[in-house]
């Protein structure tokens, strides 16, 4: 593997991690938004707060990781994407800002009225953010981001592939969050709440699955390069995603929540990886390859050192944090 491809792979690992870990956090917003009145939804909202509270900031850093590796490793393509896709990126950014701030504010809000206001902002922005990031991915895979950065500011992301990309992103986030929340509810002994989430997670799963398959039709015409990749090199990942998705539905149906989390992660990770493998070797599809987009070699080497260091110093504490949040002590309500 050339050093350019190694850095691109490291970058894409960040995309997958953000889709899975950040995605589950964003998806919680969907359940928060649809939890019902403040009385009816209090339990679910408390659960959402409790399950993403300790981890959302760490999960959020994957996005920064992706941006930094992108601009450092492939600077011109970063500038090009940022210029062309300025609108959806800024809208996603608006969502990120509002979500993070209002989530923190809601936890310490004084009155129910404040909590509701911050809560609605948190939940709504949790939905718009993955949507716009999905449209960005759609713009890149359909070859709408030219290297000179002068792509159309609207049609680059308002097109069939982008819109499906946005909807699929929202759906996969919600599906992931559903499986995590249902397991959290079950572990804290709240079977009634778990049952409620289960039904909704199943519905979300059905809709998202249907969306993914429906998307294949416009992608065939609108993003032929990606379609070729998906049918060729990435086909095993697509099949794996389908199997894991169906398995998750089955496990949710059978109330096997703990295992369902694993298959759900597998399903989303393979959908996203399928996209990455499908568009290889392009960085910006039909515009520039990974190799041609790469910056200085010394910098790529430096980046790999940083990534190696990250594996050494970030992964262990991150694993520790995740293990803690899944432990008995942490399931206790905090104060």
């Amino acid at each position, binding site marked *: 593997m050339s050093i350019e491809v190694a850095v691109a792979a490291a970058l894409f690992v960040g995309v997958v991690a953000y889709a899975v870990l950040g995605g589950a956090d964003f998806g919680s917003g969907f359940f928060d938004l649809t939890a019902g009145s403040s009385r009816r939804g*209090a339990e679910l909202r408390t659960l959402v707060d409790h399950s993403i509270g*300790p981890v959302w*900031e760490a999960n959020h850093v994957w996005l920064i990781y992706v941006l930094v590796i992108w601009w450092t490793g492939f600077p011109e393509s970063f500038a090009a994407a940022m210029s062309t896709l300025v609108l959806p990126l800024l809208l996603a950014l608006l969502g990120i800002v509002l979500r993070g701030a209002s989530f923190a504010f809601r936890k*310490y809000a004084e009155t129910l009225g404040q909590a509701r206001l911050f809560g609605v902002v948190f939940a709504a922005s949790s939905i718009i953010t993955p949507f716009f990031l999905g449209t960005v991915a759609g713009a890149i895979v359909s070859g709408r981001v030219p290297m000179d950065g002068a792509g159309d500011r609207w049609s680059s992301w308002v097109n069939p592939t982008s819109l499906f990309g946005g909807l699929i992103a929202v759906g996969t986030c919600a599906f992931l969050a559903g499986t995590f929340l249902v397991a959290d509810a079950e572990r804290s002994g709240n079977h009634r709440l778990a049952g409620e989430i289960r039904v909704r997670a199943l519905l979300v799963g059905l809709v998202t699955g249907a969306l993914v398959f429906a998307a294949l039709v416009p992608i065939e015409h609108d993003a032929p390069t990606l379609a070729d990749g998906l049918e060729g090199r990435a086909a095993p990942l697509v099949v794996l995603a389908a199997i894991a998705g169906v398995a998750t539905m089955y496990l949710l149906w059978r109330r096997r929540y703990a295992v369902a989390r694993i298959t759900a992660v597998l399903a989303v990770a393979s959908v996203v990886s399928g996209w990455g493998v499908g568009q290889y070797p392009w960085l910006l599809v039909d515009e520039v390859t990974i190799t041609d987009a790469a910056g200085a070699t010394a*910098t790529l080497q430096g980046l790999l050192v940083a990534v190696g260091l990250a594996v050494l110093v970030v992964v262990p504490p991150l694993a520790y944090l995740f293990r803690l949040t899944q432990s008995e002590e942490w399931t206790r309500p905090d*104060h």
Partner: protein
Amino acid sequence: MLTPDVVTATLAHASQVASQVASQVAGRIAAEAEPAGLLPAREQMALSLGWHIILACFGVAFPAMIFVMHLRGIRKDDPVALGLAQRWAKVSAVLFAIGAVSGTVLSFEMGVLWPGLMGTYGDVLGLPFAFEGLAFFLEAIFLGIYLYGWNRMPPKRHVLMVLPMAVTGIIGAYCVLAVNAWMNVPTGFRIVDGEVTDVEPWKVLFNGHAFLQFAHMWVGAYMLAGFSVAGVYAVGMLRGRRDAHHRLGFMVPFVFASVAAVTQPFVGHVLGFGLDERQPAKLAAFELAETTESPSPLRLGGVLVDGEVKGSIDIPYLGSLIAMNSPDKPVSGLDTIPEEDHPPVNMTHLAFQTMVGIGTLLAAVVAFFWVQRRRGRDLLEKRWFLRFAAVAGPLAVVALEAGWIATEVGRQPWIVYDVMRTTDAVGDYTASLWWLLGISTVVYTGMTVGAVVVLRSMARRWREGAVDLPSPYAPATATPGEGERR
């Protein structure tokens, strides 16, 4: 007679003149035709970075204060200290959250606002950001562990979880300052035929100027966070709350702030060494030196109007002494620097003097406080001192912002000093950036109001004796017990 030689010579001369004229005209057009997006892009960056920088200071300095407080609580079995540490942890959760998202804004803006910079120099300046990302990752992880670890972890292990935050805050700050130092003193690349080549990213990460800039900012962060937190308790004492809680809550951050405040003038002075060679225009603007004077005076206040210094108080010799470390070595005046390379002089000068003035005041007052204390006089009994302590936090914020304005505005018109002009870095957006600025102003105002409302209401509830803040998600009476659970 027209010989071919004469014709050739005349034509050559004519074309020379024409090209000179053309380049002059082009230069003038370039100077006048500022990209339409430049001003809003600058304002946008100023708003988001100026806002973020305050929270970044808390991110850098607050964990160390929490650590000291928490450690004291465990070591001395002091419930007051433990209570303070726990409250500060909750406050830092709110500040860290909005700091994290406002930091994310900046990483988007690097590309959206300055594609010229990132496209050309992304691979030169990027590595420090990668390490900053690493540090931030660890900070976010340990924040999660620490915040949710209260009463869920063995206390001795729990208190250690805040230490990595203190350390990574420092590393992250260093990395960001390394990029800024590189923009001031670029290194680690060459330009051959207009192409950036021979990139040495490690040189950028460890550039010679980075450490001093970092030291100045780091100490500034302790001043800002220390004075701000201490000020909260000073206000409490002014209102008659003079318990152990308030004294301790004041003292720990005030010690941090004091050490930082008396160190800062030296750090700043050392940072200034060699500025006359690195960025003479910035130094001239700092000193408001329109012409070269030997020895240079120190100019307090004053503005430059039509090339004339107006309204300043000049102290002879002191300018040379402070800026050049010599009794008579002059500060080069702006007249030695081409007009198109001048920074906005007045803003740079006033911002610089605001920083120095406030820094000196803060250092003097804390020094006075500790001297008096050694003599057995406690200024905490004096209302005038408590009033000063209450405004010291906002003053430190103003000083830090002013210092940042001085160094950033003073670098203009260069985004990368002597290498890339800010006009060449900005995107080709036009009026749409004004929209963005308008929306951002609304969002940042909203975030500020939200944070103030939430932090104040937390403080009020704590004051009223609430230990655990109840869940805000349900009507308190509707589900008995449920509301109290969290």
